């Protein structure tokens, strides 16, 4: 264990524990219990919770990708929703059938899912020259433009995307087994009928675990160290032979691959793709996920994803049991309003009170903008923090 200040945020999540196989035994036991609970989830969860779990796991995959980009590599992106959308639409187009005036390629869903990752990754790589030229807030805002431009394309390319209302998504399947209510039409495990949600649960769980495993590997490996080096000082990184532009491009590409998979999973969980699922608020939600969890932390991103996707559902679902809530439409604080309040307060509170943890992880975002005169954490008496000038 490192002796980081206690202020740093530690949100233990199943994924963190599961993926940290080298933790000491109580943690391993807890991880095993959580993993078992997750594996057994479809046996004891209702459809509502299965559905919420699917959205949360899809979000976790996307959040891990974003935390690699923003938290590890220090590149602020407000464009994550765009790459999610690219993945979702790619999967839908490739796996979908040609019908109702919609284009479709009818490819095997596995191939379509891999292609969704690849196409989103390619989109990220294509954006990376821009990312290489811009830094900090400039980069964030350029990527914000991406979200609006993407939305425009999705609204207008109606024969591919279905326009505003989107199109239905082909169920996921491997040869001989479909992750839907068909093929086999009836499947029961330990007496519980396994329908679409139950089957998808295992697909999502596997993908999310793989995403966390790979995320950890990337972060801890040569590529992750290079990203962190770029985040903590581009000049110093270059001085040990790290190609800064290439590392940024890699980070964007990796993050977009994650986003592509997450987008496809979201589409599968949702059963539809529509432009609203990839709006600016989605980008912001993803940023909030990684900030709440602690930027740069794989486990934190997963925990943040679960919190952000499940909280509003939970409050709406159980609003009737919360005595202080008023009925929707009556003008008091209803469940939806409360969940917005909780969400906002969570963001503000984490940033103000959990300084060391979250802000600490974000502090190297690398946003050193036009205010170059502002000293940035000199590690030492800043004898010469100001630029030296020579007499003309």
């Amino acid at each position, binding site marked *: 264990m490192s002796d980081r200040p206690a202020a740093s945020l530690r949100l233990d999540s199943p994924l963190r524990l599961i993926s940290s196989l080298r933790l000491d035994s109580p943690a391993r036991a807890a991880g095993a219990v959580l993993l078992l609970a997750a594996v057994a989830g479809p046996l004891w969860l209702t459809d509502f919770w299965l559905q919420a779990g699917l959205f949360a796991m899809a979000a976790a995959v996307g959040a891990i990708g974003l935390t690699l980009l923003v938290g590890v590599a220090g590149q602020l992106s407000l464009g994550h929703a765009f790459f999610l959308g690219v993945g979702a639409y790619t999967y839908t187009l490739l796996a979908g059938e040609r019908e109702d005036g919609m284009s479709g390629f009818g490819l095997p869903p596995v191939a379509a899912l891999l292609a969704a990752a690849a196409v989103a990754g390619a989109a990220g790589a294509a954006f990376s020259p821009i990312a290489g030229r811009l830094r900090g807030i400039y980069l964030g805002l350029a990527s914000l433009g991406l979200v609006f431009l993407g939305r425009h394309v999705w609204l207008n390319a109606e024969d591919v995307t279905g326009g505003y209302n989107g199109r239905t998504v082909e169920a996921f399947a491997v040869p001989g087994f479909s992750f839907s209510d068909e093929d086999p039409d009836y499947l029961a495990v330990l007496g519980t009928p396994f329908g679409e949600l139950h089957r998808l649960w295992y697909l999502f769980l596997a993908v999310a675990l793989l995403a966390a495993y790979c995320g950890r590997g990337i972060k801890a490996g040569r590529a992750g160290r*290079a990203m962190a080096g770029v985040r903590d000082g581009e000049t110093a990184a270059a001085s040990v032979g790290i190609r800064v532009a290439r590392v940024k491009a890699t980070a964007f590409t990796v993050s977009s691959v994650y986003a592509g998979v997450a987008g496809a999973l979201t589409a599968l969980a949702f059963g539809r793709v529509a432009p609203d699922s990839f709006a600016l608020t989605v980008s912001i939600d993803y940023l909030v996920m990684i900030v709440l969890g602690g930027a740069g932390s794989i486990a934190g991103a997963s925990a943040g994803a679960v919190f952000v996707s499940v909280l509003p559902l939970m409050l709406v679902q159980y609003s009737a049991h919360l005595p202080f809530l008023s009925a929707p439409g009556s003008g008091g604080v209803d469940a939806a309003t409360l969940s917005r309040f909780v969400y906002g307060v969570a963001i503000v509170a984490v940033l103000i009170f959990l300084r060391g943890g979250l802000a600490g992880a974000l502090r190297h975002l690398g946003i050193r903008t036009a205010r170059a005169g502002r000293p940035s954490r000199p590690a030492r008496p800043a004898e010469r923090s100001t630029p030296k*000038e020579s007499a003309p």
Partner: protein
Amino acid sequence: MRTGSGSAWEAVPAPGAPLLDVDGLDVGYNGAVRALRGVSLQVARRGVVAVLGGNGAGKTTLLRAISGTLGSAGGAVTGGTIRLDGRDVRGLPAAEIVRAGIAQVPEGRRVFRDLTVEENLRAGGLTAAPRTRSAALQGIYELFPDLAERRRERAGLLSGGQQQMLAIGRGLMSRPRLLLLDEPSLGLAPQLVARIGEIVTEINRHGTAVLLIEQNAVMGLRVADSAYVLEVGRVAASGPAEVLAGSDEIRGRYLGAGAGTASSADPGPDDGREPDTGPPGPAAAVRAEALKVDGVTVRFGGVTALADVSFEIEPGTVHALIGPNGAGKSTCINVLGGAYRVAAGTVRYGDRTLTGLRADQIAGLGVARTFQNISLSLDATVADNLLTGRHRLMRSGVLGGALGLPRARREDREHRARAERVAELLGLTALLGRSVHTLSYGDRKRVELGRALCAEPTLLLLDEPVAGMNPAESAEMAATIAEVRRELGISILLVEHDMPFVMGLAERVTVLDFGRRIADGTPAEVQRDPEVLRAYLGSEAA
């Protein structure tokens, strides 16, 4: 805080009491680094006090503590008191300290470049009563006729000397009782330095006390009544200016002459190792190639930072680059490392031309460097920082790391082992698992050196490797560098201020001043060079 009925009465100072009384001041940065330890210092009413010391000695920290601007640099006063006229001003915000009567002229002038000269001056006088301002402005214009002439021009267009005048004038606009001057002679030509000295005397004559920080010891001692010498956060010497000016110690400190008498040159008997500063032993074959710097010129905007600089580093030697602040040493090392572009000239390493290559390509040719302000991943462990240095020697990509492929794991193991050997060489083994932000300053410096060594360079560029270290640490670092050179057979370029350190270590020295090369030769030759003496001590010293 009122401790009793008598305290208010006691706050009225005795007539002979000092204007500024700093007592036992401790300052830390980011909770970890201690920058000042028990510093005590007095400035008399109408006195001029100089604080001398090398880079990293804590001079600017002292001023920041007095002027209340430590916070924005991440520092905090952890002990001691600062009294102005008996009133405790420690911990007051900067704006209140100005109102209490202390004005600081920051290092590097820091004029508001986009504001006009007059607006700069008005900004300085915002705390003064409106009716006194025009008189103050008039006074400044009389003191600096140049400024009066250019009052409508943007401050960014002034020359360096005029900007320094403006910065001083701006500081005086609030009619302070005490003026803090941070290296006013930095980067100015000798005649301007002399002029600044006159101005300080003139200001003092009008009744303002001055606390002056200087690296230019001669200038500092000439204008001051008394002086303090800071060294690694402590007061190493103090006394009347004339006494200090006559001491060999000051001369030794700045030119490395008579190293035996200079405290900082004592290698600290407790470290158990004899610093080997002799010629390279037969330990390792020389792997380095010759570095040829030829006619390099660098410009920033209209300012020429390096003008036609040439020198050569013989393979396998330690070469030092010295010169006063602002001479262009760091610019030079940044050119070699690929961070800055040249306007003219070439740098060749062996048969490769470095100018025009990106920094990472230069690193790929076996050139590694450290930074003047340490640049490490603070949240990462020492081991990870060292491994970052091995980036160019490793091959595994994103996919290998993501999937944990056996080859990537094996590579990781192998390189971790290599990094551990470097850690052993630098005495960092015990710290490998610690994250960098928990380390002391000296350890961080060593980690940065380790990261550079992990890249297995044949040419190592060290930008002030011992700035801010105490003599023992400094000597240890010298020993390490010598050992590195001997064991690895590489060339080393040192940029340093610590003269004894450089003189004991380098085989050859290049001296820069105002971006030009003014001397080049063995340490002994350079020490005798009259140009060098003039550059360091001012024209009178030669």
